[in-house]
């Protein structure tokens, strides 16, 4: 059991393994950190739902190397990301930009929340305004009859 737990915890740690190979890394730790930051925002165009930082695909590796080349050449993070967007479109960004075509994406959840809030509030208000109508005399009688019934299954 103990062994199993150790194995499990090791496996959990292994989940965060890097795709970035040591020989790809830049010598300057600050530049390397920037490269990682940029890479985490860029989608591996072949694998669709991985960042190029995580992906082992060859194109992702070449994109990582290109990011690092551009950093050493003196480009800013924004310039590098703009370059990739210029090649692959907004698709290459894992986090969609805030613009007209993505408005519904960004504001949709908020809109739903507001809509839900409005529905809840209006329902509560209506409940306050219209209390349940009192029972009619016939219903009162039916109720007392029902509560006085002791034999189960008696349908009268």
């Amino acid at each position, binding site marked *: 059991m103990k062994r199993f737990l150790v194995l499990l915890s090791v496996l959990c740690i292994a989940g965060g393994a890097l795709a970035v190979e040591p020989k790809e890394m830049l010598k300057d730790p600050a530049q390397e950190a920037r490269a990682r930051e940029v890479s985490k925002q860029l989608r591996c*165009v072949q694998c669709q739902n991985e960042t190029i930082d995580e992906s082992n695909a060859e*194109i992702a590796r070449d*994109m990582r190397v290109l990011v690092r080349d551009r950093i050493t050449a003196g480009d800013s993070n924004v310039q590098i990301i703009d370059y990739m967007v210029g090649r*692959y*479109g907004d698709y290459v960004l894992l986090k969609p930009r805030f613009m007209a075509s993505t408005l519904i994406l960004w504001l949709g959840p908020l809109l739903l929340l507001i809509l839900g809030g409005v529905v809840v509030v209006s329902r509560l208000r209506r409940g306050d305004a219209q209390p349940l109508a009192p029972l009619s005399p016939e219903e009162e009688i039916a109720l007392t009859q029902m509560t006085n019934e002791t034999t189960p299954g008696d349908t009268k």
Partner: protein
Amino acid sequence: MSESTATPRAKRWPYILPLVVILALGGVFGKRLLDVERGRDPNLIPTVLLNTPMPSFDLPPLPARGDALRSEDLKGTVSLINVWGSWCVACLSEHPVLLEIAKSGEVQIHGIAWRDDPARSLEWLAQHGDPYSKVGQDPHSKTAIAFGVVAAPETFLVDKQGVIRYKQTGPITADDWRNKIKPLIAQLNQ
């Protein structure tokens, strides 16, 4: 009694809502499925480079096979730029069409040997035929990324001014050539 059990009309619509949502979703999914059936893959990334100048490149030739492939040299003629690799299975299925195009003499085809061992590229061309005017090597995807290439084969039709006029993602079929690319070349040559 009967009066209190009747549901007012206005209160009924929330119960129809789930049905409406499910039908709408079904419609969207159905459309996407039909798109794939008809060969319009919704996962294809539309190229943002269409009608923009091609990126500039200067790629070394395959060993002992003609000149380097330079973007500058392509100006003045309409050309097809085909991104391929000897490792690429789909390129092999496309190859007969490229050979046909080269034979027709309608347009010159240049190859970008993407992420390939030059010896293997040459061997592949010797074995399957060589439709290319020039072939440039792009071992580290620099030019492929500049063209926004996702997977080989991809082909770009470039006009005399060096502007990208058409992009084919995946193999060119005989049909694509006849109905899309050839007419476009005739138009660009006017």
